[in-house]
C-alpha cells in the first residue's frame, strides 16, 4: 500500500532474507562506483585532483563532474564517457541478489513483474505545473501522490483543480506543514477545514466516528497523513534519483490569518474540490534558484 523499493518488496514477500538483501546491497556498493571513484579508475584524474575538486565544492555548489570541467581537469566529453561507463556497469539490486545466490534468474523475472504491478498505482499521471518553476516533474509527482493517498489512505473522493501560482495562502482552520531538505528543498502544506480534518482522522484512526476525540488527536491525524504522504514522496523521489529528507510534521499557528509565500519562493497551489462543494488545498513553497 506504499511506495517501495525492490529489496523491501522481496523481503515483505518472503522471497529473500534480511541477510541476503544486506549481502546484495554490499555487493552493489562495491560494484557501483561513484563518479569520482570511476573517473580515477578510468585513469582520467588522480586522487590529488579529486581532493582539489572536493575542496572547490565547499565554496561552490557544483556536481563533481561539473567542477572537474570548470577546473580543466577533465573535458565535457570525458564526463560523458564516465557517465556512460557508470550506466553500463550499474548493478541493480535484483541482479545483485542473483549474484549472491538469493534468487534465480527466473525468480527475479517473476518478482520484477509482480513489483511492477504492485507499484503501478504510484506511477504519475500528467499534472501541469506553471512554466519556469524548477524541478517540475518532482512537483507533479508530489501532487499526484497526494491525490493517490487522499483516495487510498483517507478514502476521500475529490476532483483536483489546476495548479496556480499564489502570493498568499488563504486562511483555513487547519494547516499542517512539512519541510523537505536534501537535493530538493521545499515546504509542503495541506490546508483543510474541520470537516475534512475529521474525514482524515476517521481514516487514520480507523474509527467510524471521531466525535469524542480531542482536537489534539484530530489535528495529529492530519499531521500523520502528511507524514505518510511525504515519506512516500521521499521514496518516489529516490527512485527518480533525488534525495529528500523530511522533518517531522508541524501545525501552522498562523493558519487563521493566511500565510504569505516566503520571499524568494514560488507558491504552487493545487485546489482539491470535494463533492459537497467544499475545497481544500495542497500548497508547495518552492525556493527560486
Amino acid at each position, binding site marked *: *500500500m506504499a511506495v517501495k523499493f525492490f529489496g*523491501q518488496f522481496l523481503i515483505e514477500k518472503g522471497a529473500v532474507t534480511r541477510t541476503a538483501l544486506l549481502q546484495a546491497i554490499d555487493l552493489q556498493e562495491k560494484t557501483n562506483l561513484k563518479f569520482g571513484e570511476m573517473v580515477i579508475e578510468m585513469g582520467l584524474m588522480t586522487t590529488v585532483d579529486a581532493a582539489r575538486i572536493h575542496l572547490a565544492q565547499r565554496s561552490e555548489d557544483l556536481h563533481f563532474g561539473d567542477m572537474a570541467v570548470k577546473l580543466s581537469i577533465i573535458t565535457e566529453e570525458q564526463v560523458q564517457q564516465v557517465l556512460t561507463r557508470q550506466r553500463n556497469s550499474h548493478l541493480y539490486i535484483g541482479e545483485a541478489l542473483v549474484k549472491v545466490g538469493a534468487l534465480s534468474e527466473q525468480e527475479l523475472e517473476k518478482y520484477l513483474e509482480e513489483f511492477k504491478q504492485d507499484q503501478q498505482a504510484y506511477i504519475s499521471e500528467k499534472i501541469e505545473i506553471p512554466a519556469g518553476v524548477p524541478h517540475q516533474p518532482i512537483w507533479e509527482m508530489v501532487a499526484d501522490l497526494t491525490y493517490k493517498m487522499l483516495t487510498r489512505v483517507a478514502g476521500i473522493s475529490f476532483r483536483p483543480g489546476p495548479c496556480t501560482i499564489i502570493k498568499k495562502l488563504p486562511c483555513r482552520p487547519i494547516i499542517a506543514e512539512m519541510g523537505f531538505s536534501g537535493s530538493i528543498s521545499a515546504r509542503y502544506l495541506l490546508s483543510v477545514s474541520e470537516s475534512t480534518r475529521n474525514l482524515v482522522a476517521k481514516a487514520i*484512526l480507523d474509527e467510524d466516528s471521531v466525535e469524542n476525540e480531542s482536537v489534539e488527536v484530530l489535528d495529529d491525524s492530519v499531521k*500523520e497523513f502528511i507524514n505518510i504522504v511525504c*515519506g512516500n514522496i*521521499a521514496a*518516489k523521489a*529516490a527512485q527518480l534519483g533525488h534525495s529528500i529528507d523530511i522533518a517531522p510534521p508541524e501545525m501552522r499557528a498562523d493558519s487563521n490569518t493566511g500565510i504569505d509565500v516566503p520571499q524568494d519562493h514560488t507558491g504552487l497551489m493545487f485546489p482539491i474540490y470535494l463533492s459537497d462543494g467544499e475545497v481544500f488545498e495542497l500548497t508547495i513553497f518552492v525556493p527560486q534558484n
Partner: protein
Amino acid sequence: MKSVLIVDDSLAVARQLEKIVSSCEDFKVVAQGRNGAEAIKLCQQHKPEIVCMDMNMPVMDGLTALRNLMQLTPELKVVMVTSLGGVGDKYTEALRLGAKDVISKPFEKDTVLKMLRRL
C-alpha cells in the same frame, strides 16, 4: 506473552499500533514513547522484548535511537514503523543498525501482526 514498547510522535499512530498489538494475546503493550530519547529511557525502565518505533521524530530520530538501543541491549528486537520505509537508504541503514524489520506506513493490521509473530 511478549512485552512491546511503542514509540511514535503521532498520537494517532501510537493508538492505532496499540490497538493492533493488544488485539493479539501473544503481545502486551508495556509503554509508549513520543521520541527516540523517550524510547531509550522507557527501554531501561520496562525492559520490553520488542520495540515498534517510528523513524521521523523530533528530539531524537528513530535511527539514532536504534543505534543507541542496539549498543545498550543487542538482543532487543526492534521493528521500525515508518513512512520512510520505501527510501532504500533508510531501509538499509535500519537493517544494518540491527532492526529486525521495517514496516512502511500506511500499514495494515495483518502486516504488523505477521511481522511481530516472525520475531
